């Protein structure tokens, strides 16, 4: 052990959550120096940015640096952005197959925390993906995993706990603040969950539709009778899609439909004509224009309440 450099030792201790031992060397981590002693945290979507900020407060400097339009799940950041992730003290990733770009860039595993690991066994596998075969290796599938994990508030709490543990390992001296941050967040998420459960309890058997298959975990948690189509908020579905939709309504008579974003007025009108009320339930993968993750989730809960009003 004597030949280990101070830097290497710090690396080891931090990776193991033994930072107080590393602290006895007066050698600030490169990134720490840059952030004035704050832990530099990068995330691969907005909810984790929010969670890390709620828990870490002044001890962290959290970035989710996506500036382009689009869904963070399918983002492909440029080299400069990847370098910023490499230089971070901590990278919080959603996991569950979200943001696959992370698997194709090189990050130090000791810095990367998969926040869905706490419920890895409960992840929902999407079954209808194509399986194919070529060469001698046998069949394989490009099947995916449902990744909007945070829409289940219980899972969001588990993710928050993972974030708390990761920051605490690197900033053990801030334990009191971090604990307080987690507690507040846990309370808010539990409140959200209670509100959602209560809303659905009004009419637990009511069928519901979704414009996109992103609500799997929410549906599982709340026991929703949810069927999804593949409609984009900014597009008008073709007549063929409408007729398939009507057929679906025939065997799944839903009165409400969840949308990731506001559908085009013409689409909304036609839906209402079919007796289906569109409501926006934004998964909030990106920071909303106003408010934050929690206000957005509460707005989503309000939308659900409207759909389940008796």
């Amino acid at each position, binding site marked *: 052990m004597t030949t280990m450099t101070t830097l290497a030792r710090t690396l080891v201790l931090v990776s*193991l959550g033994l930072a107080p031992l590393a602290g006895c060397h007066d050698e600030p981590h490169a990134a720490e120096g840059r952030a004035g002693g704050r832990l530099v945290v990068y995330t691969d979507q907005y909810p984790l940015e929010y969670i890390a900020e709620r828990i870490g407060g002044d001890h962290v400097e959290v970035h989710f640096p996506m500036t382009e339009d689009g869904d963070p799940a399918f983002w492909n950041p440029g080299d400069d952005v990847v370098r910023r992730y490499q230089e971070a003290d901590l990278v919080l990733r959603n996991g569950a197959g979200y943001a696959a770009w992370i698997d*194709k*860039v*090189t990050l130090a*595993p000791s810095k990367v925390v998969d926040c869905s690991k706490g419920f890895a066994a409960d992840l929902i596998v999407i079954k209808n993906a194509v399986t194919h075969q*070529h060469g001698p290796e046998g069949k394989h599938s*490009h099947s995916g995993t449902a990744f909007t994990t945070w829409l289940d508030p219980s899972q969001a709490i588990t993710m928050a706990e993972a974030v708390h543990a990761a920051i605490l390992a690197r900033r053990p001296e801030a334990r009191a603040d971090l604990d307080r941050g987690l507690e507040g967040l846990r309370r808010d998420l539990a409140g959200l969950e209670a509100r959602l459960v209560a809303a659905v309890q009004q009419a637990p058997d009511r069928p519901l539709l979704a414009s996109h298959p992103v609500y799997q975990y929410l549906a599982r948690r709340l026991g929703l009778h949810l069927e999804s189509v593949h409609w984009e908020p900014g597009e008008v579905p073709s007549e063929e899609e409408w007729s398939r939709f009507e057929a679906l309504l025939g065997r799944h008579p839903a009165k409400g439909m969840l949308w990731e974003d506001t559908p085009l007025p013409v689409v909304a009108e036609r839906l209402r004509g079919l007796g289906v009320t569109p409501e926006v339930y934004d998964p909030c993968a990106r920071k909303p224009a106003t408010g934050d993750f929690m206000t957005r989730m509460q707005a989503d809960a309000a939308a659900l309440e409207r759909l389940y009003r008796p």
Partner: protein
Amino acid sequence: MKDALHLALRYLAHYRGRSLVLVLSLALLLFVPIGLRLLISRSAEALSARAAASPLLVGAKGSSVDLVLRALYFEGRAPEPIPWSEVERVQDSGHALAIPLHVRFRAGRLPLVGTTLDYFGFRGLEVARGGQLIRLGDCVLGARAADRLGLGPGDAVVTSPETVFDVAGVYPLELRVRGVLAPSGGPDDEAVFCAIETAWVVEGIGHGHEDLATSPTGVLKREGDTITGNASVQEFRRITPDNIDSFHFHGDRAGFPVTAVLAVPPDARASALLQGRYQGPDEARQIVVPAKVLDELLSTVFTVEGFVTLALGLVGLATLLTAALVFVLSLRLRARELATMRDIGASPARIRMLLLCEVGYLVLGAATIAALLLALTGGLLDGLLRRTLFG
């Protein structure tokens, strides 16, 4: 003294042929054992330093020497691979930082080491030119690897199979050189590094190809959700921004192969605790302290070296005796000369001094030549032992 040196030098210069033979044989007498000793001790030092800087290694059960040589020096026989889950097992133990090492393939005839960024941090390897690994398909070169391959940032290097006979699964992948590391004076200088995921692509676990679901010509048969590709489906030999999204891994990452896990515990207690975890009777992996393994290996080397030194010593003694005999015989031939000196007024001490100066010159000349030989061959011999031992 000056006079004695002058006379001695004149004598040796006059009989330069004889002097040269004496000097050369003495030089060899000095050079061979010292050179051997130096070579071994220097190589041993370098090996030991590397081992001492690598606290623990986890690998498949089997030869601990193979494991250490492969994981630390990228040489020798590759041990059986272990699954990625072993990396997580070490990391999750909380006793050590786990750095995976995948040392199976070569790139441009040099070892290709698949690992993670933690490796560079742990070894203190800095990027001297270009940048660090960023994406799948990137590599960084050790300082000497860059020199030997004549490559730098922006260039490409093609991977090669383990052996020329390994034609089955592995196909060459063109790696993009992102950067060149600063010299570190160790095996890292002569290696090509890539992300472990890239190594898996080389191994064929991960690959990229055109999307079969949309390919008009690549489908052999379609059964329900299963599409079988035909021979026209092209696997990409180079990972580019255009095709990187098509790269994917098959199976569970937990089962992906790793040559060894470099485990870095923060202190002796954690080290002991981690080692304790590998002591079970059903344990399929071994954990080794590289310094200990190397000490055992080197003690064998030193035993052999001891015999060689003994043999060389005997040969040396014989040579020395022969040289002494030559010298004494030459004294007999010089009896008249020495008597003249005595008659003229030289003391026996002065004559002894003169002869000593001659011997001194011979030894000095021999030592100089031996030192020159050592200096000249030092660079060439560097690493020779390593290659001899592990090659």
